[in-house]
């Protein structure tokens, strides 16, 4: 069973934003704006997802940031596996929410690891 980051609501927001265009590269501040979450929430999630290889990152090419006169950015993008896992995890979280209408409903998520 593949290990999976905890599907907190914030993590779901980040994944949903990243999945809007799975091949697009984004940087941390952009993710803060896209999700409306503060940097202190977004970066730990990014760190976790990167550790799990759901996303990968690279430094911006010098041509781009030097011509714009700013420091280089760290760009992130979903890995192929990561996009797949993210879709499944979001779907599971969504189903989980729907079926947990009863109070205290702790529905076991199929395939959830932690």
């Amino acid at each position, binding site marked *: 069973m593949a290990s999976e980051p905890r599907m907190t609501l914030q993590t779901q927001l980040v994944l949903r934003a990243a999945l809007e265009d799975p091949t697009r590269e984004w*940087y941390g*501040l952009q993710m803060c704006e896209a999700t409306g979450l503060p*940097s*202190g*929430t977004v970066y*730990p999630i990014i760190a976790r997802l990167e550790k*799990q290889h759901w996303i990968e990152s690279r430094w911006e090419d010098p041509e781009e940031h030097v011509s714009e006169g700013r420091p280089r*950015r760290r760009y992130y993008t979903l890995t192929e596996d990561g996009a797949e896992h993210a879709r499944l995890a979001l779907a599971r979280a969504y189903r989980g929410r729907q079926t947990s209408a009863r109070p205290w409903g702790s529905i076991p998520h199929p395939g959830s690891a932690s």
Partner: protein
Amino acid sequence: MIAVGEDLACTREPELFFAEAPADVEVAKALCVECPVRTACLEGALERREPWGVWGGELLLRGAVVPRRKQSVPADLGSARQLAPGSKAAVNRDASPDRMSRRALQLGALLLPRLARDRYIEEWWGELATLQTRLGRCRFAVSLLFGMPSMAVELRRRSRRRPA
């Protein structure tokens, strides 16, 4: 390393050392001449790749000394902070909190594993440099400081194998 608490010109007038106008930059550099920690200051700034400002008598931009003949391009320094040329007042007013945000993040990052630290400091300083308002930069830094413990936990977690 600059001796903290010493009465240096740059601590008395920090704005001058992050000014945009060439004349101000020259004044700042002149004040460095007599400074007891001038060499160490420049070395430290180069090592930390300071994004901008006058350090140890030299104007630095994105971690490198700007050659003197090229210093008639203040617009470059302005755009490094995403400010319109001529908004000197804005640069001056924003200079020291900016440094504070950066220093705070640098200190907070001490919680992170050593191998990851430099990368995140550079990443966050870069984001700070593109944020337009002082409030925005402050918010970014403070929020990150609060998130630093969970960041540290995430980064120290045992690395898991790539999902099959």
